[in-house]
């Protein structure tokens, strides 16, 4: 395990299943609170830096701010990294004990996604671990990996849990879009509210079979959810993107209304 990356002192994983690090920022950054460092494979630097810089221009109260990015030579070779302000993913276990609070958090995440969409970015990696908490606030993790590695619909080393929020239209259709992020928000909401996946019982091995199943399988919304919430999630998971909420902001309004019931 690393203890340093560039001049950041790494404190530990940024979440229960996170591949990012909580870190102490060096004095030059001027931030006393912990920051989060995401490690990436090096490569394609000028274009990657340009994309990250454009992503950093998105101003949203529902997104952590990007601070800096770099490539450095570490003990085990060159490493690329991106640093953002704090915000950590809590562990997801069973059904939400406070569904109204979860729905309000999902509304915040959806508004973060909408701000990305309005700035021309698809998130492409919305999942339970991308819903972050910072104090009383809920934030959406910036799509650092998606932006750093464009063109790939599913990355290497995925698990069945990673596949659950995948809109088949991401693969069959014309790539990630507003509507595929809305699908992912719906699947993520289902996981956080019920503790279960919309593609239950995907096989771990071989992963190819799991990918094939999520591409053709109809997602399942559990019947124990309140009717209005279940209907909202089903609309997110509709096969035809035209049947889903038009924008993530519309979905955020739906989450907010559901939280107020």
């Amino acid at each position, binding site marked *: 395990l690393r203890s340093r990356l560039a*001049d950041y002192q790494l404190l530990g994983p940024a979440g229960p299943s996170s591949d990012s690090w909580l870190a102490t920022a060096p*004095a030059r950054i001027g931030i006393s609170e912990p920051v989060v460092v995401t490690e990436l494979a090096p490569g394609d630097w000028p274009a990657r830096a340009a994309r990250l810089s*454009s992503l950093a221009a998105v101003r949203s109260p529902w997104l952590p701010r990007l601070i800096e990015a770099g490539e450095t030579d570490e003990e085990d070779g060159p490493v690329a990294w991106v640093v953002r302000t704090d915000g950590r993913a809590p562990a997801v276990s069973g059904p939400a004990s406070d569904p109204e609070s979860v729905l309000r958090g999902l509304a915040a995440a959806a508004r973060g996604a909408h701000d990305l*969409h309005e700035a*021309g970015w698809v998130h492409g990696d919305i999942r339970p671990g991308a819903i972050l908490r910072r104090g009383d606030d809920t934030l959406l993790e910036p799509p650092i990996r998606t932006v750093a590695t464009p*063109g790939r619909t599913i990355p290497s080393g995925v698990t069945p849990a990673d596949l659950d929020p995948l809109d088949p239209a991401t693969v069959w259709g014309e790539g990630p879009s507003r509507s595929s992020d809305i699908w992912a928000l719906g699947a993520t909401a289902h996981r956080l509210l019920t503790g279960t996946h919309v593609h239950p019982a995907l096989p771990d091995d071989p992963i190819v079979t799991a*990918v094939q199943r999520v591409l053709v399988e109809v997602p399942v919304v559990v019947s124990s959810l309140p009717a209005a919430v279940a209907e909202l999630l089903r609309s997110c998971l509709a*096969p035809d993107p035209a049947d889903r909420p038009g924008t993530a902001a519309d979905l955020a309004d739906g989450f907010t209304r559901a939280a107020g019931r």
Partner: protein
Amino acid sequence: MSDRLEVLPGAGTVLRHGSIAVWIGPAASPALLSFLVQSADNVGASAHGGLQIVDHIAGILSSRDPEPGAPFGVIGPSGTTWITLLHGPVQLWDGTRWLAPTPQPGWLRAEVQPQPAVSIGASGGSSPRLVADSPYDLRAGTVPGGGMILVPGAGRPTRAERSPVGAGPTPAPTPLPSAATGPRPVTDPGTVIDFGTVVDAGPAIDSGPAIDPGPAVDPGTVIDFGTVVDAGPAIDVGTATAAGVPAPGSSAPPVGPFAARHWSALRDGTAAGPPLPTGGRVTPADRPQVTGVRCIRGHFNHPAARTCAWCGRAVTPGQPQTFGPRPVLGALIADDGATWRLDADQVLGSDPTTDQGVATGRIRGVVLASAGQLAPSHAEIRLSDWAVTLLDRGSAGGTFVVQPGATGWTRLTPYQPVVVPAGSHLSLGQRVLTFVSPWP
């Protein structure tokens, strides 16, 4: 002397912020115009503003092209040269050669050396004339215009020492592509740059060695989006202090207590792009046209489809066949779950960027990691009508396929394309990929 920017008559918009000049065609959306204005404003004061804005836009376009048909051209300085990004039906003349994105729609990033000036305008635009000592000069702002001529000022990178305006002979221009008609352009020494005839956006346009699709930054340099600076000497992590380290975003070298190969401040990122489109799925109209049938909701499907791949509704047998842009033909799923969409031809290998088609953006590269014998450009996927074909690029390790119902692997004959039906498994360099498709 500062650069001079002459606005040409016609439809469109010309804008200038500092060293950045942009022409935008009338087909561009207000959101795209706003994006370009803001981006140019952000970097216009930088000596490397051209590199910054071009890489910024190229970064967005490499992920997604929101308006493939919108013509625009951006030019700005990059140290000792000029750099341009041309998008859509647009053309550039630098005094000796034409540049235009090919194929269309598409975009092109290139370095140029004004000889002695650069003109940018719509493909097929009228012939602009550069007049020495012209009083017309857009110093800053956004105005209507059908194109522009940029005349670098003294000290700017040009080849004016060889062909100054108003003095001395100018090198003969590179001949126009044979597909063009009418008189070829002639550069009148010092007075006129003649666009000549319509530029065909086909492959005959000079897109040769001057076009650099790769990174414009040498290894070892650092981008901070305020300037391009040298990384400076590496500092020992164990002994260096943070004292004297500049804040991110400053123009000073980011000499931190780490040996940076690259570094970029992000806190003051450049402008974000235009909003994503809303609504349902839309297949880009520039895809090859194929025959198919439509479901009751109008979704375009394979002619043999019985169920709509988009909405799941039944497709009534006997539906009349129509033409439409070809949808995604399926996906390749690797043995580690990594998945690639089959919406374009692809080269598979350990480093497909070495392939010229991949390097120029004509073909997509799929990088596979393998402990086996995997060539940099090992095999190729080609899409034709509704069919997916696999071709071995003469690799030493070979490419193998097992089709549905077959019992063993078959090695492909090099350079002999083979149609692979959905459900086929492909093997190269000890990696196995599965082709899946929603189509019959």
